[in-house]
């Protein structure tokens, strides 16, 4: 009886260690794959012929297509910040600080982070699904068989477009958000326009704008890397299944991973750069 129990414990431990090791090796391989993928994409930036028209198409899709969702997110966030700000600051008789609070929160935090999350949800998922479908229907294999570099042809334009679009969308988010805050605080709740604008201009310096810009570049890089990479490796991702199911699973995974990475890097960048 004792021997049998001992044996079952050993078997459990062996199985546990086997699965743990297997999982670690898989994660290590996945990180390695994504690293090599990134290297190939960056190398694609220097290969010719450069696909200028495809870059424009992607700028239109990632940047132009995200304007509406980013606009409404920014307007809503700015207005809510204005309302909440007035409600809180009035308790301390400091509603003159509203402009400063709204502008700093939007430029350093909400602008970069919400823009990245919106683009990850709208364009990142679409990019991942497109590349995933191209992979499972052998279109990427077909490119390789024609001796066409799939990174230069397919991935690099999307990468560049995201890195150009996201900071511009973030800038738009900041402007629209601040206007939303102004609308709610000044036009609706009667905070003085002069104190709002004066507070904003005196507190926002180049440093805050640079921090927001650096964040938006890093977030764009992360979300497009994860979205394109998950789609490209759809067949190697464990547990993703096959066919249409695999594409749907990796697309969800891409959005979740992008969002988590953006949130983690937001904290790290704030801690390092503030």
């Amino acid at each position, binding site marked *: 009886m004792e021997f049998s129990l001992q044996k079952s414990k050993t078997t459990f431990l062996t199985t546990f260690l086997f699965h743990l090791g*297997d999982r670690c090796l898989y994660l290590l391989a996945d990180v390695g794959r994504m690293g090599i993928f990134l290297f190939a994409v960056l190398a694609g930036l220097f290969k010719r*012929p450069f696909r200028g028209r495809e870059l424009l198409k992607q700028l239109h899709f990632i940047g132009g297509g995200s304007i509406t969702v980013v606009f409404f997110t920014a307007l809503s966030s700015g207005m809510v910040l204005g309302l909440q700000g007035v409600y809180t600051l009035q308790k301390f008789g400091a509603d003159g600080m509203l402009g400063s609070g709204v502008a700093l929160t939007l430029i350093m935090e909400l602008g970069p982070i919400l823009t990245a999350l919106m683009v990850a949800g709208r364009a990142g998922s679409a990019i991942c699904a497109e590349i995933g*479908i*191209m992979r499972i*229907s*052998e*279109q990427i*294999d*077909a490119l*390789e*068989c*024609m*001796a*066409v*570099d799939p990174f230069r*042809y397919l991935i690099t334009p999307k990468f560049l477009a995201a890195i150009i679009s996201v900071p511009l969308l973030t800038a738009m988010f900041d402007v629209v958000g601040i206007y939303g805050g102004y609308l709610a605080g000044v036009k609706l709740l009667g905070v003085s326009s002069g104190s709002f604008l004066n507070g904003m201009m005196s507190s926002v310096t180049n440093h805050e704008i640079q921090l927001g810009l650096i964040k938006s570049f890093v977030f764009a890089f992360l979300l497009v890397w994860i979205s394109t990479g998950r789609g490209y490796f759809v067949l190697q991702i464990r547990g993703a299944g096959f066919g249409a199911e695999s594409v749907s699973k990796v697309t969800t995974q891409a959005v979740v991973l992008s969002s988590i990475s953006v949130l983690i890097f937001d904290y790290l960048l704030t801690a390092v750069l503030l």
Partner: protein
Amino acid sequence: MLTETEKEQNQTSPAVEFIEVEKYFGDWGQRHKVLHRVSYTVPRGKTTVIAGGSGQGKSVTLKLVLGLLKPDSGQILVDGQDVTRLGRKKLRNLRMKFGVLFQGAALFDSLSVFENIALPLRERTRCTEEEIQEKIAKTLETLELTGHEKKFPAQLSGGMKKRVGLARALQLDPEIVLFDEPTTGLDPVMTQEIYDLFQQTQQRLGYTAIIVSHDIPHVFDLADQIVLLNRGEVDVFANIAQIKDSTKPHIREFAEMTLGSLFKG
């Protein structure tokens, strides 16, 4: 520059050579053998048909030749170059010798028929737009696709997709053309049409063909060599008669099941 003797040797040497190739799939502890120490050659300018049941490694064989998959051991020589040891750049140059017709044609969904066929010319040659248009117009005429150039793959029938795939595969005048299940999902008339097109283009361009197919025995009519894959092992035959005469039990079983009345006759 190659000397005359070297050129002559190139002409007589095999186009593709498998040497002791092994390929496994699956994770540790659950490895599934697909190819086990497989060795055979694909003669230059001829048609080799690779047949076998599902999951026997037919499509894997094509991916190994193209360097899209790496074998676990062994060598795969294409024009004397070992595909398994080539770097990215050399592999890409070697792939210029290939044309591939994929099982589902693998046409780019977002590109029209014209753009699909023009892609290899635009990306891999210095042809002007006029030259490309002229060349594609001829190809479309040969493959009876004139008038469909503006359509997108989703608007095409299965047979038309295969024809567009074939047109794209032949644009760079490849030395070796790989066909992955070229007639799967097609009706008998379309199937015959694809075989006729294959014969016409091979006669005209003289390429080496490797055809992976389930369409037994019809596809054997095209073959100069038949490779049968069975549980990781290969058997090479020159024609159907040799298959029928084989005394190996698994070949007899295969022949009985697939050649049917032809076998009994």
